[in-house]
């Protein structure tokens, strides 16, 4: 799109097109992005029954002084497709667009993630890796949502979304390279474990600060919106942003959703509401109707879904993606309800703040993996033998990757200082030389053997 083209378009884009019924003011709609703007001259009309203040259009006057009380409203409903026993609840619901093969892939991905979680949680307990975060109870949100996206939709994750990565093509070797900081880690061994990222899979590298990815995802969605406009015949993409209900208390959540709404960005905000942020229960996190109720306030289409029902998540995300691409771009908020079955991380003992029986109940009564397995068994596409085979091969592939990653060296030591800037600064080169001299002078004090190239890894290439 040339500057001239843009200029011409910008002058002609906004045309008066609608006078909405029952409203005494006019909206103009951008023909290109379908974004609505209010016509500039707004004035209170004499005798009108509605407010025409610029900040709240079409609000009716009332003489009844009544506060809007959130607790008097019923909670937003939770969409589900399967019940806890894997039966389709509403037989008249739209026929599911899922092949047996795809169902098996989704199930296998969840199982691989859950097995990797068990092995890596123990590996951390044995001191093999420094940190780990498990996905137990939330495998379905990751795998189910990822399966409804285009493989090229950029993803911003929080850290408990291994199912997304697995569905996108991460193999145990990819996970393990990151977890062990090996030379095969695209992050060059710089990030804590579970901070995955992959350009190849359109996944932005995870960072620890909570919610920072939310406004970033809105910006990325704006970029994608412009790319969609520039290539109307190419694949139209959306951005997907995951976060927990605790992260939604950060200021960046507010900023990100408000911007996505005002800039009409094609983005899916997927909140994993699992009941806890480390030790803080939701009652201490918020007093509204979860996260979903906030979407309405920002003017964002919103839905709440049963996160333990992978098919429901998949269907919701699929339709949300269509919504996000309509009208030139619209944000959608999805609140996926679940329960954090696991500890928060390997640095947390969750029985210090919640009853073991509560956790056991969730594990036993409702869980995305068993629910989906029951549905597959009901359809006759899964049985005990296949289950046994899957679990044994998943375990084998994780352990194989584990053994390899344990052997692999870290990246060369110089990578500690590279990529801070596009090229190393004169100051950094001096510091690299200084470090090399120290290590050479005190060889007994430093073990460089675990790094690719050893001492030579401190040489500038």
């Amino acid at each position, binding site marked *: 799109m040339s500057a001239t083209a843009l*200029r011409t378009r910008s002058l002609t884009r906004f045309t008066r097109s609608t006078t909405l019924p029952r409203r005494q003011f006019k909206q103009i709609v951008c023909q290109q992005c379908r974004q609505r703007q209010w016509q500039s001259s707004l004035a209170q009309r004499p005798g009108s029954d509605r407010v025409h203040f610029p900040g709240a259009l079409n609000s009716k006057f009332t003489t009844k002084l009544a506060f809007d009380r959130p607790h008097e409203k019923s909670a937003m409903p939770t969409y589900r497709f399967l019940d806890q026993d894997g039966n389709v609840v509403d037989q008249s619901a739209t026929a599911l667009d899922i092949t047996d093969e795809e169902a098996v892939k989704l199930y296998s991905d969840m199982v691989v993630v859950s097995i990797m979680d068990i092995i890596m949680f123990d590996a951390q307990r044995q001191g093999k890796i420094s940190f780990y975060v498990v996905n137990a109870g939330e495998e379905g949100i990751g795998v189910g949502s990822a399966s409804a996206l285009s493989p090229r939709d950029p993803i911003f994750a929080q850290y408990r979304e291994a199912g997304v990565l697995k569905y996108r093509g991460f193999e145990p070797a990819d996970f393990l390279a990151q977890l062990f900081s090996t030379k095969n880690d695209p992050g060059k061994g710089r990030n804590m474990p579970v901070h995955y990222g992959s350009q190849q899979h359109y996944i932005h590298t995870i960072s620890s600060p909570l919610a920072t990815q939310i406004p970033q995802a809105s910006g990325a969605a704006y970029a994608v919106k412009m790319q969609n406009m520039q290539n109307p015949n190419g694949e139209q993409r959306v951005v997907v942003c995951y976060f927990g209900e605790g992260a939604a208390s950060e200021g960046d959540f*507010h900023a990100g959703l408000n911007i996505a709404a005002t800039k009409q960005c094609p983005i899916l905000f997927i909140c994993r509401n699992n009941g806890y942020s480390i030790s803080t229960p939701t009652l201490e996190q918020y007093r509204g109707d979860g996260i979903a109720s906030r979407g309405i306030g920002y003017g964002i289409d919103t839905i709440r879904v049963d996160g333990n029902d992978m098919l429901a998540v998949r269907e919701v995300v699929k339709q949300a993606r269509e919504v996000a691409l309509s009208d030139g771009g619209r944000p959608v908020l999805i609140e996926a309800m679940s329960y954090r079955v696991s500890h928060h991380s390997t640095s947390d003992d969750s029985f210090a703040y919640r009853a073991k029986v509560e956790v056991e109940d969730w594990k036993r009564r409702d869980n995305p993996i068993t629910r989906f397995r029951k549905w597959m068994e009901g359809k006759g596409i899964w049985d005990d033998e296949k289950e046994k085979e899957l679990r044994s091969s998943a375990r084998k592939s994780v352990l194989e990757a584990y053994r390899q990653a344990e052997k692999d060296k870290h990246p060369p030591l110089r990578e500690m200082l590279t990529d801070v800037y596009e090229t190393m600064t004169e100051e950094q080169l001096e510091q690299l030389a200084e470090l090399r001299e120290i290590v050479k002078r005190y060889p007994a004090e430093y073990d460089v053997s675990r790094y690719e190239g050893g001492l030579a890894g401190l040489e500038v290439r």
Partner: protein
Amino acid sequence: MHRIARTPGRPCGARFFKTQRPYATHPATARLNVPTDFGTTPILHHTSRSALAHRELSDTARNGTASRLNLFQAINSALSSALRADQNVIFFGEDVAFGGVFRCSMNLATDFGSDRVFNMPLTEQGIVGFAIGAAKEGMRPVAEIQFADYVFPAFDQIVNEAAKARYREGTNTRQACGGLVIRMPTGGVGHGALYHSQSPESLFTHVPGMRVVIPRSPLQAKGLLLASIQSNDPVIFMEPKILYRAAVEYVPAESYTLPLSQAEVLKEGKDVTIISYGTLLYACSAAIAAAEKDFGCSVELIDLRTIYPWDRPSVISSVNKTGRCIVVHESMINAGVGAEVAATVQEACFLRLEAPVQRVAGWTTHAGLAYEKFNIPDVTRVYDAVRKAMEY
């Protein structure tokens, strides 16, 4: 953020300059502390020939024309060049669509469309977060923070996210956020008080991964801003707001860049090196003229231009030549840019130093409204520092 209330249609930035400055008068007896005469100062290009002769210009710029612009017009010219040259450049911030409260984005929304130049909701953390995300998906976003004083809500996004993006992405280089520029008006303006005066550059020079750039003049602003937009590292670009209308010089019409991380020797000398940047270079220049006359010394003046990563070799080589060093900046002395420069000079020039390195900077306090003239370093303080250096 609370801001000075604005009359509709009358940007508060413009108002800053239309009012008299009741807190910024000079006594009739002043010989050193007289207002800068921007019409005659030797550090601005007063003819088009002198501007086009600037040695760092590209041939295209040198062979083109130049016209008289003030600093905000030079910024506008740079933004316009960047938007024209690359469709991935987008520009946004609070109130930028109608031209910006300091008029830096005049006509840009009309010329390039509201898809590429647009207003954002009033949220600094959102603006910077949005910019980072757009950069990660291949845009070259220029974000405006209305005053440097209001960049702090975005500190987390800058320090933990923008600065670390390339490093943590590792080999996923396409997802790093190079191309990101965060522009912000900075520095004292005579009556800005606590929240329209700050110079927070040293808070960013402590952050590896960010480049911090502060221009001193219209010609420099255009070249450095275009270089910042082209840079594949995220850049904090701080514009001395007192110069927006005051500093006027000939600026080449063509697009051109000036190198980042390279200082500029504004005036050669052999006895003392003064290192500064932004607005205070004008005070330094005036102080040097008086001091050279009064003390019979010769002073070298260096404009850092890029505050981080800064041009250490140029400064070190200058101080090794002169043996005396003074660092001058508006922001507070404590852990300021002067501390970093002084420590580096002390390490690298120890045997050549004939006097202690001096830091002439804001006192360790806040920008109280009535006290600005006594807080921000002026010609007298720089003059006195030269005297101390020569008499030591």
